[in-house]
């Protein structure tokens, strides 16, 4: 048991709640990025290092895209949100994270690990999925490019 897990859990829920609650889009995106970073640290605490690294890499790309989109789509007028409102949101988020710290589930499900290495789990058990996923991502990338290209042609 890691002593810092509880702090990470509270930070995770607070940053996720603020990402939704804050009116200023850029502040919300910063909070969203910190949520991904804390989530990655929690994955390290769970002893799943591949997941943690992948989450961190994905987070960098996603947050960068959200930053650009937030900057492009946010009106330049200043948004005033009362400090009291922000603090209230953080307090509610801390309250939401408390059940995960205080409660304890006792699962009685037996789990039979496969004792696989990560590479064999990915390439021997899920090789078809990985290939199919590559096709899906290619189609999505083509779709995004088509959507943006159509607009440029019309412009």
């Amino acid at each position: 048991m890691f002593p810092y897990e509880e702090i990470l859990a509270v930070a995770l829920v607070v940053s996720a709640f603020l990402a939704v609650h804050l009116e200023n889009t850029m502040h919300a995106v910063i909070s969203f990025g910190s949520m991904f970073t804390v989530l990655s640290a929690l994955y390290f605490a769970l002893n799943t290092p591949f997941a943690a690294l992948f989450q961190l890499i994905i987070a960098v790309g996603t947050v960068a895209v959200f930053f650009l989109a937030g900057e492009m789509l946010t009106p330049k007028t200043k948004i005033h949100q009362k400090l009291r409102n922000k603090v209230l949101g953080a307090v509610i988020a801390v309250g939401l994270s408390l059940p995960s710290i205080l409660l304890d589930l006792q699962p009685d499900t037996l789990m039979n690990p496969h004792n696989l290495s990560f590479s064999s789990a990915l390439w021997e058990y899920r090789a078809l999925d990985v290939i199919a996923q590559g096709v899906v991502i290619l189609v999505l990338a083509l779709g995004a490019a088509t959507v943006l290209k159509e607009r440029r042609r019309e412009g």
Partner: protein
Amino acid sequence: MEYLILSMSLLAVGVYGLVTKRNLLKMLISIEIIAAAASMNFAIFASTAGDKLGQAFLMLALSVDTAMTAIVIALVLVAYRELKILDIWDLSKLREK
């Protein structure tokens, strides 16, 4: 500490954002939070069972989720450029016209 309940808390935050916010970017952030809560379960069960297969599933789920985010952001950008709309209610009103 119970990670499954933490995942449910994260899911609740995402659903709250999806229900209460009307800004398209905020709604997309809420969907990302829900996806993070769902994919967290893979890591939790992989850790509990001591199995690497869960991490492989997590990688697959995260990749598809990120690709989906890219295409939704492209659609949001087009909606804003063409119609100057970032509000989901205003966007749905277009259907009635």
